[in-house]
């Protein structure tokens, strides 16, 4: 099985503080990893290191079986084009319309050559995926927090990357909007067969991903009887303290880990 992302004893230091401390794991194709952890436990740092936005102080990072730890920024762009990232506060460009934001990676990723006449359909498709086709000419400031998050997902998936990184996709959203966002993440996984890392503070997000599937006919989430390829990871002060399946996580007696585990939401959303 191909490994899309691999960390080998990765540490990241900032001003003498260790944001990531000797983290090792590898992500297989079509796997979804749920990364739980308290604030400032290194969750965002882990995603940024995976993306090459932050460089590891020691250890090695492999993306698509290529060592990218010391790769020059100019060469990094081609690899980054195979990753999609949703930033915590969406990070949409304020000065551009929704359509321009979504078209941005198509226009600027050098390794993605797309004919001009296919640009608009691609942008429309991506926005249709997040059900926001009507906002093409709006500016990000005119949208609600949940809509901004959805546009940011559209921007992350417009290039059809095989690996997606979601940084706290539901942070600061009401439960209904949060559910919509998680449903989109599951839809992306099931429709396009992508691999993903999902950072979150809410256990129910991970529970949804692990136990539900997108039903293309009804457009809703159905319980996945056979389970999904979902792995849970827990970070504490930059260290990886748990890695495994949902039952193991729920069975854990570690006080820090069990704090993240709540009883699953009742099914039938």
């Amino acid at each position, binding site marked *: 099985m191909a490994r899309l992302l691999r960390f080998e004893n990765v540490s990241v230091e900032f001003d003498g503080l260790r944001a990531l401390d000797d983290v090792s794991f590898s992500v297989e194709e079509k796997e979804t990893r749920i990364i739980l952890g308290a604030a400032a436990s290194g969750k965002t740092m882990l995603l940024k290191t995976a993306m090459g*936005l932050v460089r590891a102080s020691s250890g090695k990072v492999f993306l698509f079986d290529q060592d990218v730890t010391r790769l020059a*920024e100019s060469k990094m*762009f081609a690899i980054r084009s195979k990753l999609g990232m949703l930033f915590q506060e969406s*990070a*949409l460009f304020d000065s551009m319309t929704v359509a321009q934001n979504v078209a941005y990676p198509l226009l600027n990723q050098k390794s993605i050559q797309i004919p001009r006449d296919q640009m608009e359909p691609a942008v429309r498709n991506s926005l249709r995926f997040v059900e926001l086709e009507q906002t093409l000419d709006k500016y990000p400031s005119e949208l609600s927090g949940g809509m901004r998050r959805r546009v940011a997902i559209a921007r992350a998936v417009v290039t059809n990357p095989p690996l997606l990184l979601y940084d706290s996709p539901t942070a600061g959203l009401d439960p209904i909007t949060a559910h919509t966002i998680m449903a989109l993440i599951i839809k992306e996984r099931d429709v396009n067969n992508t691999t993903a890392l999902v950072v979150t503070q809410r256990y129910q997000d991970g529970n949804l991903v692990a136990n539900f599937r997108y039903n293309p006919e009804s457009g809703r989430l159905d319980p996945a009887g056979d389970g999904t390829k979902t792995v849970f990871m827990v970070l504490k002060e930059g260290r990886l303290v748990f890695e495994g399946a949902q039952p193991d996580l729920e069975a854990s007696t570690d006080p820090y880990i069990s704090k993240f585990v709540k009883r699953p939401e009742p099914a039938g959303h």
Partner: protein
Amino acid sequence: MLDFLKGPIQAIQDFYELTGRALRNVIRSPHYYDDIRLQMDIIGVGSLPIVLLTGLFSGAVMALQMGRALGQYGQTGRVGTVVSIILVRELGPVLTSVMVAGRNSSGIASELGSMKVTEQIDAMRALGTDPIQKLVTPRMIATAFMLPCLTVIDDFVGMFGGWLISTSEYGVPTLQYWSTVWRALDWSDVTQGLVKPFVYAFVVSLIGCYFGLRTTGGTQGVGRATTQAVVAASVTIFVLNLFIGFFFVSQTTS
């Protein structure tokens, strides 16, 4: 002691690195011409009103003070010479640059700072663009082109302000005023008057970008970056002005 110096030295090193990368990008593709045009409009055309106003009033007040001082020696008629030299050599470049620093170093720092704290800079890198190529280099090129132009306008408006006061307050004939203004100027004055704003353009734009890109700590950090950018840019302009002044004085006297 060494720890105390580490911060400033690191900052200077970071600034030089930014400058190097911004300059290198001038000859590297991709070029973002739309961004350069937009920045020229914001920095150049947008600064025109304040440059016109400060130029007019600084020229006028200089004629007012100099006219009286020269009058003590019976030389009121030469007020045009003094106004012209001081404006073209010193006041025009410095005043324009400091005004543009106040307006645009702060603007650049707050814009880039906001982008930094909302992860838009990271998003740019994630989506295939080098933020220095996309944000810093266009602002640098636009300022390097527009600041000398603004200085020329400022010089001329200042001379016009000087003319208003010279004729109305001291009764200097129009023809005499403008001919003294014209004859006072040497090629070296014009060179000096254009080299200065060209150099200060890099100070104004790059210091704004530098403080913007290193912003941390949310909206409060943006405010801090903005203030630091204006202060650092203005002080650097005044310090550099003396050194460039020394250089040109030694050139003309030797």
